[in-house]
């Protein structure tokens, strides 16, 4: 009973935070940015390459068990055409309550294909999960074809209806980084950064590439540098949720994790560009950027304030 009494104000506090009014334009920016990113991701050739993979090699995850084998070329083509088309339409803000779920379902199946080969691939999962809160949300009340057609654009509209999807997406992104760091700590402990762990990861990756990766080797050959970068990685991941409490911390964590993904690409050639795009779309206050651009203050940097209220 005591625990319950203590918990209730906290739950109410979380609920209040999630349902704080937000700017319709901020939500529209998420719709445009995340749908646009999804359209680009779904247009890649990797899915056609996986189509018709022999049944014996198929290792389905979750709902992918519904397919007896890897989806065939024809179905993949249909999913790509529908997915890319729907994502572009959603980005434009035309009936996103229908177009965005259509794009999301196509994305979940296509990205599910890459995860049904024996190992979960996380390249698109953050984007897909950050899109979930937008699926039923009123994302086209600003910066959209819908609002132009209705001639009742509400560019300055502020409401809890626009706030919760943005904040829920923020929780998903922050939570993802936190859990990635947490599992490193659980399985490896401080040895993740205090041992040669990162050096061996980078050597393995370089040895597997057609041409030795000199960026990776530069780090792997310097144990002190590998320790520092591994420590920074864990600190960024575990500390990322701070941006939910202290929006100004985004000035450190957002460039930090973008640097992390750029580093991963440079050393290991792993494609986490969808994560970079998702973090930027979700955590940059795009209406503030637009306002500042409109006022001609181009030299000032964008604000990372989570949601302009009032």
């Amino acid at each position, binding site marked *: 009973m005591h625990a319950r009494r203590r918990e209730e104000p906290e739950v109410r506090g979380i609920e209040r935070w999630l349902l704080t009014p937000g700017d319709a334009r901020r939500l529209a920016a998420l719709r445009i940015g995340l749908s646009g990113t999804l359209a680009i991701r779904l247009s890649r050739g990797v899915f056609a390459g996986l189509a018709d993979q022999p049944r014996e090699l198929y290792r389905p995850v979750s709902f992918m068990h519904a397919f007896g084998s890897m989806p065939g070329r024809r179905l993949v083509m249909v999913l790509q055409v529908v997915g890319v088309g729907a994502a572009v339409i959603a980005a434009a803000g035309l009936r996103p309550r229908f177009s965005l779920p259509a794009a999301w379902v196509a994305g979940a199946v296509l990205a599910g294909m890459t995860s049904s080969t024996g190992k979960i691939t*996380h390249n698109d999962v953050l984007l897909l999960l950050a899109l979930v809160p937008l699926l039923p949300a009123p994302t086209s009340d600003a910066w959209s074809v819908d609002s132009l057609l209705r001639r009742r654009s509400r560019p300055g509209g502020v409401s809890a209806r626009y706030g919760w999807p943005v904040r829920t997406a923020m929780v998903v992104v922050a939570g993802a980084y936190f859990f990635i760091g947490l599992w490193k700590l659980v399985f*490896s402990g401080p040895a993740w950064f205090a041992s040669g*762990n990162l050096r061996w990861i980078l050597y393995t990756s370089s040895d597997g590439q057609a041409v030795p990766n000199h960026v990776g080797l530069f780090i792997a050959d310097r144990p002190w540098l590998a320790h520092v970068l591994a420590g920074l990685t864990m600190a960024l991941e575990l500390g990322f949720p701070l941006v939910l409490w202290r929006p100004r911390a985004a000035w450190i964590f957002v460039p930090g994790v973008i640097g992390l993904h750029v580093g991963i690409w440079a050393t290991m050639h792993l494609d986490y560009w969808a994560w970079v795009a998702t973090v930027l779309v979700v955590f940059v206050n795009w209406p503030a950027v637009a306002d500042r651009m409109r006022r001609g203050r181009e030299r000032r940097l964008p604000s990372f304030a989570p949601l302009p209220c009032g």
Partner: protein
Amino acid sequence: MAKPTDDVPRWTRPFVATFLAAFLLVALVGVDAWPLTGWRLFSHLRSSHQTTWNAATVDAAGAEHPVRFARFPAMRGFSLLAAQLPRLSPPRRVAVCTAWAAAVHESDRTVRLFRVYRMERDLSQRAGDRAAPPLSRTLVYACPPPGGA
């Protein structure tokens, strides 16, 4: 000014609560329920001792050629499946190996045999920009492509 929580539809709270609860539960348990995931990325500690899995094809003259996995999307996940090969039932092992052999044979009709190797390396031993030669290289399995011999 709008008040917090003033005008959200009735379904909003259960929707957000259910979604975030599922997200947290799957993340905390560490399982994968795609697209929900346990977020285990590079979480296990690596050591300088490395076990890798490689594949090679053998042509009609008996010459061996390493398989370039990047050329064959169907070979995605090869290392994980190869590591499971010894634990598979004999018919399943044949089926998996033959599927790999078929994928390679499709683009190179000279392939007569597909071989799977397990290699042990010490990553701390370097030969220039590459790992030193493997400590051991063991042939784990071999199979012809379908219709091949």
